């Protein structure tokens, strides 16, 4: 029942967005049409222990040219949702319900063969560990152009030129020479650039980045993030960026979806999530981030407890057990998505008109105030 509510609210709001889009001028992304829309997606895995409900009713829209960040801790279902979009779930996964609309068709209805025509050329994906995501015994140039060659888009003799062009686009010097090298002859950051080149070869419209910087060290992280946003602008890509690192998100995302226990608990523009968080999980996540301005006397907030076991998803709000502000109803009934603005939604009963008012932790409030004044000055 909760899911239906979510859906209606999302739907209502989509229509309102289209109608009222002239009134907003600060947020540009709401005006764009969505290119991909995921509706009430459920994914479960059958394991020896039972059925793991990894994703339990996820809905979101990806708009043309935007970067949507999906944030959540390990096991929150963010990677699984994205793999479902790519049709690359493992064998023991099943999708009991949900729809993924792209270009007028429901991707979940496609056969694997039909899906492989969309992968790479319409929707592409890069992965967490560049050390593992390249074939160790194939020349990198061949890996980049392989699919173009297989689909007959280019001739074998043009492959080098095409690969060199792609390698230059992702910032690899000396591409003609490096075409013939193997992945082990590249550093981690370089390999991730090659992975990006592989993903871009088919000129996709959507790029899904599944924690692309997690396995890289910090200085390289920044370079890869710059590269991704640079490529996005040049090619007008729509990007789904999956991460657990809120710091990474702040720099690149237009909108942020916060996932917890297989659901999106809050979704909004970058500013809305960082400056006006509403779901207790988002609030606590933000408050748990250390800050340069903190002095030694302040204790860093941590979230008690552990995420729920998805073999037995809890009734009501999955976060209630770890939430000191949880209401009685949080344990009983799943909260619907409450709209806060046209772009901002959160699934918590605390947004109900009868709910008590929520105070942000003082350290977080202080930080938000400071950031707001700074951005006004700037």
């Amino acid at each position, binding site marked *: 029942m909760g899911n239906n509510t979510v859906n209606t609210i999302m739907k209502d709001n989509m229509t309102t967005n289209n109608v009222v889009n002239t009134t907003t001028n600060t947020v540009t992304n709401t005006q764009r049409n969505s290119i991909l829309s995921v509706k009430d997606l459920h994914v479960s895995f059958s394991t020896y222990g039972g059925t793991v409900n990894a994703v339990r009713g996820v809905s979101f829209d990806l708009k043309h040219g935007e970067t949507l960040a999906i944030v959540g801790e390990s096991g929150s279902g963010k990677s699984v949702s994205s793999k479902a979009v*790519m049709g*690359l779930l*493992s064998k023991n996964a099943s999708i009991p319900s949900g729809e993924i609309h792209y270009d007028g068709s429901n991707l979940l209805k496609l056969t*694997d*063969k039909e899906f*492989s*025509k*969309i*992968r*790479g*050329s319409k929707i*592409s*994906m*890069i*992965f*967490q*560990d560049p050390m*593992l*995501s*390249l*074939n*160790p*015994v*194939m020349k990198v140039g061949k890996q980049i152009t*392989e*699919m173009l060659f*297989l*689909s007959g888009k280019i001739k074998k003799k043009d492959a080098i030129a095409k690969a060199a062009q792609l390698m230059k686009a992702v910032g690899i010097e000396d591409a003609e020479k490096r075409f013939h*090298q*193997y992945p*082990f*002859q590249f550093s981690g950051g370089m390999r991730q650039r090659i*992975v990006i080149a*592989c*993903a871009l*070869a*088919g000129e996709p419209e959507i790029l899904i980045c599944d924690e692309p910087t997690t396995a890289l060290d910090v200085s390289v992280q920044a370079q890869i993030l710059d590269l991704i946003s640079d490529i996005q602008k040049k090619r007008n890509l729509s990007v789904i960026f999956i991460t657990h690192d809120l710091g990474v998100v702040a720099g690149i995302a237009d909108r942020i979806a916060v996932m917890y226990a297989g659901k999106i608990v809050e979704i909004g523009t970058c500013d809305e999530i960082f400056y006006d968080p509403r779901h207790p999980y988002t609030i606590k996540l933000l408050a748990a981030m250390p800050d340069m301005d903190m002095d030694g006397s302040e204790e860093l907030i941590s979230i008690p407890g552990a995420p729920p076991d998805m073999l037995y998803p809890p009734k009501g709000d999955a976060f209630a057990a770890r939430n000191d502000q949880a209401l009685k109803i949080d344990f009983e009934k799943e909260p619907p998505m409450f709209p806060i603005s046209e772009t901002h939604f959160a699934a918590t009963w605390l947004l109900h008109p009868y709910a008590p008012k929520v105070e942000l932790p003082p350290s977080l409030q202080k930080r938000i105030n400071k950031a707001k004044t700074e951005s006004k000055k700037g």
Partner: protein
Amino acid sequence: MFKYITQRILLMILTLFIILVMTYFLVQSVPGGPFADPTIKPAVRAVLNRRYHLDQPIWMQFLQYLKGLSHLDFGVSIKVQPQADVFKMIAARFPVTIQLNLLSNLVILPVGFILGILAALKKNSIVDHSIQIMVVVFISVPSFVLAALLQYIFAYKLGWFPITFSTARHMNLEKLLSMVLPVLALSFGGIAYIARYLRDELSEVLNSDFMLLARAKGLTMRQAVVRHALRNALFPLVGMILGIFITVLSGSIVVENVFAIPGTGRLSLAAISSNDYPLVMANVLLYTAIGLFARLILDLAYGLIDPRVTVGGGKNAE
């Protein structure tokens, strides 16, 4: 590269020599001797021992043996085929053994590949489980038991194949039929090893990130398996081919006896059981040399097929 090969060959010769010394003294230390038969009169035995220099101290015999070896004289057979030149005896029988060995490799590799790939692609299905059961049976039952079973069922009871190996000089249908059972008996173990190994290796590769990327690029499952998974899964297998060759070689020692095949395997067993020292030594040297040489070829081959391996630690990498 050249330096590396020279080093390896020198090391091979050293290894061969150590094995030669060990075998020589081990074989001689076995109680009894070629003429230990109690029905032989002591005077006759003394003459025979002198005839083959067996009355001399063992180190003298060894030096003489080495002297012979230095101009490729492997000595003469004492017991199995008295006075016959050992080298010629082996040279006459070795082609038979190698022929059977290569034939069973021709059976092992494709069948093992297909079963292994099938099991990996259909992991945890009924296909996979049946292959697994077959693998366990083939690995646990030794080849000579299978040889005897095959011979009993298909040759003796059903009469589909001849009971013994045909010694016809040229290949004909009868000879081909007589080779079927020995080749099968030699192949089961290898098939099981390859199938089990390839299943584990391939199913690991199938779950690797680069398979995901290959699929994300738009390759179909079949394209991704053929172009990315198989090659990676096959690399370690190259090393196993040598092991299988050697296993089949040692398996044929017994299987050749079951089917009365005139090869070096049967010859080795006859030599060992009759304490025919020169013949045992020559067989051991042959098998050791094959093993060492195959190892060298294999290591060199890795440098050719796997871009990550540089033979001899050269500066191939950038």
